[in-house]
């Protein structure tokens, strides 16, 4: 994303009325303005109509007790936020579940993605087939069918226990047990490492080979080359993938909903923030309260994203002034 904005900044607006005469230039600029806004009009309508204004509406709702009828709506100030942070018994549990999920499954997914991408980047045969096979779970990961499948894979007589049985371990239902249910959903997220893997692969290909050759001449071993050349060179890609996966991780919903049958069970162990928000809004019709939850989520995601970006100063290496 940084690429395009940087480029946009380099461009200067063409001075009006250069060349063929001031009049013609002026109309050309006006025509471009008119055309620009015409072409942009569907997006502008969408931006204001179903993004920006609803967002502000949701902020306003978060200070009310709105539950479906505007006539009975009252302004309650910060009450929703107070109830959220100090009263709602499920709230902090859902925060904990979601944070655990993001903090554990996102790094695990990225490590897998980078490891496989590194292996695939060694110029091996059948690269195309590997890429496809590893990528397909990313496409399917958010589907209900896979969540259904997951219930069977990790169930009491599921595939995982069948494998463990061979080694002599007698596993119980992983999904029915509060200690392991969240783990199965984390594995589902790691299973979709294909899309960051593809991005890593593209990044690895752009590391200049001269760097490796120079390092090899200087006597750097394979590990040193990976550590001092590969990783710094692709650190912007790591940052990019990290941010995408983090934002996505906070919003996981479908898998949790289907795996737990919409309850977040067993014993609230998979009650993700998004699922609690859904329940409060659409089963209990506490729209005001759920709006407050949504805004808290927005603030947290923005803060985490900003923190990850800021941390990049210490570990992201932006080549010698080229793009990104």
């Amino acid at each position, binding site marked *: 994303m940084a690429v395009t904005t940087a480029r946009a900044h380099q461009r200067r607006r063409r001075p009006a009325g250069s060349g063929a005469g001031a009049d013609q230039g002026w109309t050309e600029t006006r025509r471009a303005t008119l055309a620009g806004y015409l072409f942009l009009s569907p997006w502008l309508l969408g931006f204001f109509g179903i993004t920006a204004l609803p967002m502000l509406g949701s902020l306003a709702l978060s200070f009310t007790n709105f539950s479906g009828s505007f006539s009975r709506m009252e302004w309650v100030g910060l009450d929703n936020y107070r109830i959220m942070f100090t009263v709602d018994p499920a709230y902090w549990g859902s925060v904990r579940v979601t944070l655990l999920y993001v903090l554990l499954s996102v790094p695990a997914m990225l490590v897998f993605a980078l490891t496989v991408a590194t292996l695939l980047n*060694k110029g091996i045969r059948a690269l195309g087939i590997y890429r496809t096979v590893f990528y397909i779970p990313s496409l*399917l990961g958010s589907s209900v*069918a896979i969540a259904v499948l997951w219930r069977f894979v990790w169930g009491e007589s599921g595939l995982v226990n069948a494998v463990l049985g061979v080694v002599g371990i007698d596993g119980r239902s992983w999904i029915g047990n509060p200690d392991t249910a969240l783990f199965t959903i984390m594995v589902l997220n790691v299973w979709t490492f294909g899309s960051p893997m593809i991005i890593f692969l593209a990044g690895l290909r752009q590391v200049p080979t001269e760097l*490796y050759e120079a390092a090899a001449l200087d006597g750097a071993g394979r590990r040193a080359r990976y550590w001092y050349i590969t990783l710094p060179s692709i650190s912007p890609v790591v940052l990019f993938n990290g941010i995408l996966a983090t934002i996505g991780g906070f919003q996981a919903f479908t898998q949790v909903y289907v795996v737990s*049958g919409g309850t977040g069970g067993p014993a609230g162990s998979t009650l993700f923030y998004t699922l609690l928000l859904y329940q409060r809004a659409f089963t209990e019709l506490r729209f005001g309260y759920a709006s407050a939850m*949504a805004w808290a989520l927005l603030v947290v995601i923005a803060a985490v994203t900003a923190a990850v970006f800021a941390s990049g100063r210490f570990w992201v290496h932006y080549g010698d002034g080229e793009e990104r």
Partner: protein
Amino acid sequence: MTAVAARHRPHQVSHRVQRTFIHVGLVSAAFVMSYPLLWMTASAFRPSEQVLVEDSLWVSTPTLENFVNGWTSVAQTSFGTFFLNSLVISALAVLGNVLSCSLAAYAFARLRFPGRRVWFALMIGTIMLPYHVLLIPQYLLFNSLGWVDTFLPLVVPRFLATEAFFVFLLVQFFRLIPKGLAEAARIDGCGHARIFGQIMVPLAVPALATTAAFSFIWSWNDFLNPLIYLTSQGNYTVPIGLALFVDASGTSNYGGLFAMSLLSLLPVIGFFLAFQRLLLDGISTTGLK
């Protein structure tokens, strides 16, 4: 790396051994990862009572009865209805995204007008916006318009370029198209509409195909929106139908459930395989999922 290794002859053998190890590792990983999918495929063709018992991929007595049973097993509605609904919604989502995102992208990429940079920054900002902030107000808005239990809430936003990822993808693509072409056309008296329709769009077919394919896949897999907006069974999409199947079947018809799950994935896999190259390039450049 290959070049470096090749220069040291003695390393050749260990190099080959290493290659073999990498392949063994990758094949095992691929096998473990794909096993659930393969098992689901095999299970869909097994008699229902074998599904939970059989862990291998071998189908001893292949049958199509699951597809017949599964098709009509959800209350009053058949999966035919769910598939048709999903297809209509996804097709409209594709159309909407391709039209609205390419229009917006053309403006961002090729037209100079006051405010462009601000709008562009806001557009990029919406990519990062968590959807849950919009969930409730959008629901209230569409509810007040009387759109609940219609396809409109699932389709209309697509015609307003709200999936900004695609705008971004197309902006990047349009910027790569040489300026000279459009300028020549303008000297010949072409308006922006014709430049867009006759020069830009035909040249941007790869990026538009990527947009179309991901629009289809996202819309096809979408669960949260249909869950909220579609209330009568006749309007359900495939994912909602499947979720209903899980709740309803309780214990018995696993074969049917697997058969319908498998069918629900086929369009996604089909779309991916058909557009594979484009999609993988699209992911590399923008991080689409």
